[in-house]
């Protein structure tokens, strides 16, 4: 699939990286091989496999990321309550320890698989793959993946999901998009949670939070909501409906989508949609 950079050594392109191929000898007994593959290609291949699996069963997978305590689990509880009659929902929960979150979500009547990562600060595609095998995908429409609470590492790992949702609770401060650009650049939607507290948290300015996000050249929607008072919840629910409809439309056309940040693929291969993988 990639005969320009030789990133996949196959019988068909092996001649490029062997013998007197385009990768010249540097010195006696030395061969320089151009690779140009993502450093996380092991993870990315697994992610592509996961996504193909999800697409096969028509499941939309949404990855939730935020700091610990921003309200991911509470948001999921309310979201499940509001969508349970329309979609068959399941959750994959990532935490360093405990089954607490999975128990909370099972109490809402959905399947919840807990991944305890031990000391790992993020989920990766392999962990999600193992969890997927514990779910009956044929009986699902919508899969939420609640990532480990962390504004740093989860942003760099494609799990095989379709969309990234980044939560910023108003208690954290409106400067977070400027401080954690990698995370906020990865978002397909930013949710300002605990918005019921805005009247008492004068320091948090929704306009400033949005401006910090726009400074990252991000044009994504920003919604303020409160899982507690349910203010603003409907806008988020509508967004999910819209995404679900788009996913179903894509699948009819045999297409898929990757979450927002797709760093290397596009640039390396010159044209949009040509991922360095089995997706093509």
């Amino acid at each position, binding site marked *: 699939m990639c005969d320009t950079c030789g990133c996949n*050594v196959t019988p068909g392109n*092996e001649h490029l*990286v*062997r*013998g*007197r191929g385009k990768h010249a*000898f*540097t010195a*006696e*007994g*030395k*061969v*320089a*091989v*151009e*690779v*140009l*593959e*993502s*450093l*996380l*290609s*092991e*993870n990315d291949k697994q992610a592509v496999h996961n996504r193909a699996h999800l697409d096969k069963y028509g499941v939309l997978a949404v990855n939730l990321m935020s700091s610990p305590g921003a309200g991911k689990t509470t948001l999921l509880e309310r979201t499940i309550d509001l969508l349970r009659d329309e979609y068959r929902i399941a959750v994959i929960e990532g935490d360093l320890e405990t089954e607490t979150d999975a128990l909370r979500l099972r109490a809402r009547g959905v399947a919840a698989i807990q991944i305890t990562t031990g000391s*790992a*600060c*993020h989920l*990766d595609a392999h962990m999600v793959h193992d969890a997927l095998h514990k779910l009956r995908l044929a009986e699902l429409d919508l899969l939420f993946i609640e990532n480990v609470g962390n504004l*740093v*590492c989860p*942003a*760099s*790992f494609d799990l095989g999901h379709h969309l990234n949702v980044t939560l910023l609770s108003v208690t954290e401060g409106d400067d977070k*998009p*400027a*401080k954690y*650009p*990698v995370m906020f*650049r990865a978002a397909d939607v930013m949710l300002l949670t605990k918005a019921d507290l805005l009247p008492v948290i004068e320091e948090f300015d929704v306009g400033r939070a949005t401006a*910090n996000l*726009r*400074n*990252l*050249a*991000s*044009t994504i929607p920003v919604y303020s909501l409160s899982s507690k008072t349910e203010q603003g919840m409907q806008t988020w629910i509508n967004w999910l409906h819209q995404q679900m409809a788009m996913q179903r439309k894509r699948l009819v056309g045999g297409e898929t989508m990757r979450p927002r*940040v797709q*760093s*290397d693929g596009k*640039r*390396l291969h010159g044209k949009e949609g040509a991922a360095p993988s089995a997706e093509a």
Partner: protein
Amino acid sequence: MHELSVCQSFLAQVERIALAHNARTVDKIVVRIGPLSGVEIPLLRQAYPLACAGTVAENAELVTEIQPVRVACETCGAETNATVNRLLCGACGDYHTRLLSGDEMILASVELNVDAAEQLRDAG
């Protein structure tokens, strides 16, 4: 904090490439990193010796090439430098920009040590 798993991931790729070329050892690994990739180069350098111990790349030099943050403006068309949390067009200030570079984490190339006989056979 995921620099160790990043190392393990690219070393697995390097091992596969080394095996495909019947290389005895790996001399050099070149990676390209942009500040927006989430990979911290100093941490990557610290993690690397731990990750490569016992692999075919045990004695390989790790070369890290830092990529600049650059954006292309979709409004005025200018290509300018930017910073990690200010990806606005340097010419007109608009935020409708596309990242040209700065989020790379690429295994660019590896330098392998192969047997001369092996090379000859391959070349023939």
